[in-house]
């Protein structure tokens, strides 16, 4: 009897063990920027839905979330340290301008064979493909891209006697408007109920990070007909009249004519957050100033109607009564890049797979799920202001999607997208960007544009090698 029980027990154990082996659960980890508006959607929808779907397919998968510090720079630091240590998430979001450097570092899984075997890949628009392609290989998937308009405050413009709606056609137009606002800043401030009115701001300084380069410096540089990297010669631009014009414009608004915040503003605290709060200040923060003109990313239009967001403009007056947008003009009509009258630049984030993942196939399944047309459309409906410039043209052409578009979305898609350009997709770019930020800080500290350009040229040559730089007229 005893033996019988023992045998039974042992056999039972054996079966249990086998069962446990068969049931071994696959666990994937995911890192996504916590400050993105659709982060909760990952937690509440994508992850549970994907887990259920995979369980139904017979491969139970568990996705764990890895929370990294916010915002961009701490996220980047945490990402690279984890990648270098081999402890990063299987799937993570990467700003697309880091993809070249990270691909060369061997951190990213080459997705080319995966996308080629995926029938839906053909729906990606060329510009979106470019952002995630480096050296002919695909390293991630992206859902959308962004553009940069110029925002202006209608209430301030009206009080300053400026026309509304407004579309400047040159830098001089912008300066003229700024001067007109500056002349009446005290009365306008009193009228609105804020501490001061700042006519204009262009993002600047080291603390501004990539925002300084992309939303400040680049928007001016493109308008002066310049670039940081000359694709024709394959070299970085050390000197050009466009670079000098850009630095001079910074010098003009911050030092010469004092049309903006004090230069020190950009060197303390979290200036990029603050400048957006100034743009959306209609008197709800009476001790802070209001800002009349700012070039920034397109999503701000939606933050300002979201009551949960710190940039929310209370109603009344409501966003539509006070905030408006226009295109950023070139220095003079036709002086912009490719002879354009107006300029803008695009970026965006992509989702990539860690090259060290144990389960590349399942990770790609997750990417396919998140980037499917249906899920992107659902995301667009659930999270206002998300996926407005989709990476998939089948989504752009979808009648339901088109119905959702506001006049602002149409403006971005039809007026700005045709004008847009991208940052150089090269591993050196992030470092050159740091250099640009420092150049603007030097202007803020009172150095002459010519001296700063000289410094930029020398430091750039030392950084990327003298044989890799070029001086353009």
């Amino acid at each position: 009897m005893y033996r019988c029980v023992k045998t039974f027990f042992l056999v039972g154990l054996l079966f249990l063990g086998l069962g446990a082996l068969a049931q071994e659960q696959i666990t994937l980890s995911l890192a996504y920027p916590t400050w993105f508006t659709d982060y909760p959607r990952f937690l509440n929808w994508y992850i549970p839905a994907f887990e259920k779907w995979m369980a139904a397919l017979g491969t139970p998968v568990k996705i764990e979330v890895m929370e990294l510090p916010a915002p961009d720079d701490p996220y980047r630091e945490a990402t690279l340290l984890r990648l270098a240590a081999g402890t990063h998430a299987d799937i993570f979001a990467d700003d697309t301008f880091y993809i070249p450097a990270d691909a060369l570092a061997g951190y990213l899984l080459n997705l080319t064979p995966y996308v080629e075997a995926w029938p839906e890949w053909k729906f990606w628009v060329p510009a979106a493909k470019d952002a995630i392609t480096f050296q002919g290989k695909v390293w991630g998937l992206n859902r959308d891209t962004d553009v940069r308009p110029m925002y202006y405050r209608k209430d301030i413009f009206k009080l300053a006697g400026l026309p509304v709606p407004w579309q400047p056609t040159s830098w001089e137009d912008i300066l003229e408007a700024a001067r007109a606002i500056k002349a009446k800043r005290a009365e306008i401030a009193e009228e609105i109920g804020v501490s001061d009115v700042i006519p204009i701001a262009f993002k600047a300084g080291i603390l501004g990070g990539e925002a300084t380069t992309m939303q400040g410096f680049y928007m001016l540089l493109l308008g002066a007909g310049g670039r940081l990297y000359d694709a024709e010669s394959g070299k970085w631009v050390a000197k050009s009249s466009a670079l000098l014009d850009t630095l001079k414009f910074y010098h003009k608004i911050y030092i010469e004519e004092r049309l903006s915040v004090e230069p020190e503003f950009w060197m303390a605290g979290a200036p990029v957050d603050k400048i957006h709060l100034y743009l959306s200040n209609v008197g709800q923060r009476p001790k802070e100033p209001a800002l009349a003109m700012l070039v920034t990313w397109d999503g701000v239009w939606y933050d300002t109607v979201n009551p949960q967001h710190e940039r929310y403009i209370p109603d009344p007056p409501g966003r539509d009564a006070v905030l408006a947008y226009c295109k950023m003009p070139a220095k003079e009509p036709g002086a912009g890049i490719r002879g354009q009258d107006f300029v803008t630049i695009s970026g965006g984030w992509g989702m990539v797979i860690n090259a060290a993942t144990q389960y590349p196939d399942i990770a790609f399944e997750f990417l396919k799920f998140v980037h499917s047309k249906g899920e992107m459309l659902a995301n667009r409906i659930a999270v206002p202001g998300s996926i407005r410039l989709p990476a998939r043209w089948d989504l752009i052409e979808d009648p339901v999607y088109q119905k959702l578009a506001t006049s602002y979305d149409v403006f971005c898609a039809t007026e700005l997208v045709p004008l847009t350009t991208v940052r150089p997709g090269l591993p050196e770019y992030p470092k050159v960007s740091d250099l640009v930020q420092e150049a603007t800080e030097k202007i803020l500290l009172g150095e002459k544009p010519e001296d700063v350009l000289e410094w930029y040229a020398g430091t750039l040559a030392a950084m990327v090698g003298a044989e890799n730089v070029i001086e353009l007229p």
Partner: protein
Amino acid sequence: MKKNLGVLAILLVPAFVLWSIFMLGPAIWGIRLTFTNEALTGPAARDPEFIGLANYQRLMRDPYFWGSVYRSFVFVLGSAIIGQAGLGLLLAMLTSERRRVWSRIRLTGRLATTLCWLAWVTPETLIGWCWISFLDYNGVLNQTIKALGFEPVYWMVRYGMLSIILANIWWGTGWSMMLFKAALESIPREVEEAADVDGASSWQKFRYVILPLLRRPIFVNVLLITIWTYGVFGLPFMMTGGGPGHRTELMTIYAYKTGFKYFEIAYGTTVSIGILFITLILALVYHRLLARKA
């Protein structure tokens, strides 16, 4: 005795193993790293190459590194040597209970001692936040200034170096004060009484009796706080982040930025080795001075 040594060795093993894993190992790894071009991203992250002494050659020619060496020197001179040691000595003298510099000294002196000590035992991060909330554009100082009808100032931007020096003095003076207080109490009463009998003034007594007797503690303290202050990172980094431009970029901040902002981990380590050497040289100089004077 032999047997005891064996036991001693066995007892030391756990500590040695831990020390090797967490101190010696990383240190050796770090030195090895400085001979490569290892980075946290880009091609060098995948295939780091052995590049010999190139990092050290770059360090020698790096104007930002030498700039940071100079700034660290100013920071140490201002905040440690003049600030903490000087102020610490003054406070130690003023609050010395035996000497009664002024009447009713007991209570004020003890209060001052406690407050200084409190600052010293407070964690760096808290000190940082205190100073930020004081000097920030919307901070206490500017609020006061505005209430008095003056224009607010970006203190940490316009007077960056001064701000971090003041904050570090505020933070570290307690240590020097305590050390000097202990040293002062250890001076034999008879010596000072003899000076009194000889008719020495307070200043003469300080200059010719107390100061010479304090030479050794002063040297030891200056050596200690110099080494510590060269290694200070958190407080100035929180307050100014090395900016504006590079104006408050101390050696430690430069090392951090190279490693974790520009992700050149090998060169960042080389900068750290540079810091180590500079601190080592200073320690040797102090040591020599101390030996000679003694």
